[in-house]
């Protein structure tokens, strides 16, 4: 496809810590078009954050990244740091869960945005200032003239996240990675920020990777969803396909475990026993097998391939759920 913006092939990340090898990402592949919103969903330790930090070259020295990730044909894996610094921010920007920790508490909002603008382009101070005002309005901060001179502590959590988005957009990135960007926010603020991200995507054509533990966010806002478990993609499909025809027992278990308004009070939730596997010693078969209600002896011994079984719908399971069938 010619309009592919980001192509990730067999991405692997391994951490070597005090003689222990932690296999965090184990062969992740996906494609992202310009203006597309892809949700990567999974629990803690599923590799969703590590895989996206690998794209930004933001992993500690103990990490070994292999495979390939190309943005507009430029290979990011193994790129030397000085070159990476030029891409980071300019091509790919990232916003994080905690905007308070991402902002400098001793600098005014305006100065932080202007700094980001001038870090990537030779712009006069006045022009940068005008652009910063423009960005503040773009992320729908009311009264930008005043907010420009305020400090992060004077803003609410939602406003700080808007400022982070403004900084991320300072250099017109092609790809924005939102790593649990709304997790720390209240539900009404989350809806506002998600609306804003959706609007930016259609107005500026920015592709967005939405990293979240929340299947509801994926269902409501993303075009495509990747579900990760133990460092691997286990299901990947357009959002509507995924929610209409869920194949992976793991995805199904995640969806069923979410408390829902439709359920009666005190209804028991379907239970998935056990815990996620130890990433230092992954089993030879399917990593979800010990917790899976549909597991067969085959699942224990051989790993199901992650393959496109239906048009546009990928999964890795020997014994997938049929249409409408409970786990």
């Amino acid at each position, binding site marked *: 496809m010619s309009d592919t913006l980001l192509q990730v092939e067999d991405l692997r990340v391994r951490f070597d810590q005090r003689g222990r090898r932690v296999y965090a990402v184990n062969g992740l592949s996906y494609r992202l078009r310009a203006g597309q919103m892809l949700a990567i969903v999974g629990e803690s330790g599923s590799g969703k954050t590590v895989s996206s930090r690998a794209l930004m070259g933001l992993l500690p020295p103990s990490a070994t990244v292999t495979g390939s990730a190309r943005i507009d044909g430029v290979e990011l894996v193994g790129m030397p740091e000085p070159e990476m610094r030029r891409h980071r921010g300019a091509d790919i920007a990232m916003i994080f869960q905690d905007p308070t920790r991402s902002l400098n508490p001793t600098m005014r909002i305006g100065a932080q945005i202007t700094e980001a603008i001038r870090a990537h382009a030779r712009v006069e101070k006045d022009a940068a200032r005008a652009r910063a005002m423009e960005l503040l309005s773009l992320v729908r901060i009311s009264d930008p003239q005043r907010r420009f001179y305020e400090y992060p502590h004077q803003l609410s959590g939602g406003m700080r996240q808007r400022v982070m988005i403004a900084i991320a957009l300072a250099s017109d990135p092609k790809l924005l990675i939102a790593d649990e960007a709304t997790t720390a926010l209240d539900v009404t603020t989350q809806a506002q920020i*998600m*609306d804003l991200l959706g609007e930016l995507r259609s107005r500026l054509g920015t592709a967005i990777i939405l990293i979240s533990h929340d299947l509801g966010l994926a269902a409501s806002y993303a075009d495509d969803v990747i579900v990760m478990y133990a460092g691997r993609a286990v299901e990947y499909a357009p*959002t509507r396909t995924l929610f209409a025809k869920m194949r992976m027992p793991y995805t199904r*278990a995640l969806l069923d*475990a979410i408390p829902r*308004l439709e359920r009666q009070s*005190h209804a028991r*939730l379907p239970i998935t026993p056990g*815990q996620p596997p130890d990433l230092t010693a992954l089993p030879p078969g399917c990593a979800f097998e010990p917790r899976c209600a549909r597991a067969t002896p085959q699942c224990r011994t051989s790993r199901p391939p992650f393959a496109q079984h239906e048009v546009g719908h990928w999964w890795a399971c020997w014994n997938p759920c049929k249409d409408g069938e409970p786990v």
Partner: protein
Amino acid sequence: MTLLEVRNLVHEFTVRGAGGLKGGVVHAVSDVSFELAAGETLGIVGETGSGKSTLARCVLQAPRPKSGSVRFQGTELVGLRGRRLKQARRQLQMVFQDPYASLNPRWRIDDLVEEPLVGYGVGNAGSRRRRVRELLDLVGLDPAVYGRRRPYELSGGQCQRVAIARAIALDPALVVCDEPVSSLDVLIQAQVLNLFEQLRTELGLSYLFISHDLALVKQVSDRVAVMHLGQLCEVGPAEALYRSPRHPYTVDLLASIPSLDPTRPPAGGRAVASGEPPSPLNPPSGCRFRTRCPRAQDQCAVERPLLREIEPGHQVACHFPEPVNAAPDGAAVDGTQPRPATVHYARP
């Protein structure tokens, strides 16, 4: 039978701004009243800064509320001190959000679960050990495997089970749970929620269950109270409140939940509360929600709406409550329905 009766509870924090910045009084809990029957679960839902945690802690007298009354099992807790407070609190326990922070990392699990028994002088060493094994079994941890471990050797979900075992060790009547599953992954969260349900039915516990997650609160509660900026704005039976929310704030909260059905429009849209929540340092006059409320009128700025019963057991603090939701059952509860067309979006 009323187990807990809270009347006109007020708690305020005085903050002094650092380095001469402006300080003030944070109105964390402002005149809150509610009741909890024995065996009942009351969910308290609200956003960050709504005062829900402060309310929970004030019930336990930690901190002591500034004014108001907390009657637990017929005993007034406000003003009690020392040994008498300790005895009254035996039946009143708490589970916190972060299980690692609530367990001493150097202690073994056995000793952690035994601590409340030792503190209240229950039985002798032998009977306490038996009780610890019983409790660990009850919360789904094998005592032979986990008893000698320390908290850092356990996962978050397992630590929360230990915290729950500690809370139920003294056979309490009421357990106050402050965001007890918010730090857990969804599959583990479901396990712990089911444990709460199991203990409720087996031990006849009551819960005061605090969370920011509306769906989660619905899951565990008989009744739900919605809190906004230190005040309760709606209290009602869980089913009725979610089927037909009457306070505009509750409607906004429900409309903000992302839908799990991708064929529906995403949450939000124009119906959701715009703007920022006001500061608890300087809450608006009259109704504290009026600055974000699409239904606000002049009266709302002048007169604080008090909780009043609009249907049996369903109270709302609003001068102009939302009309009863006439949508057929099931259509209203997913939170994605638009507001009724008759609503006037007049802003003050």
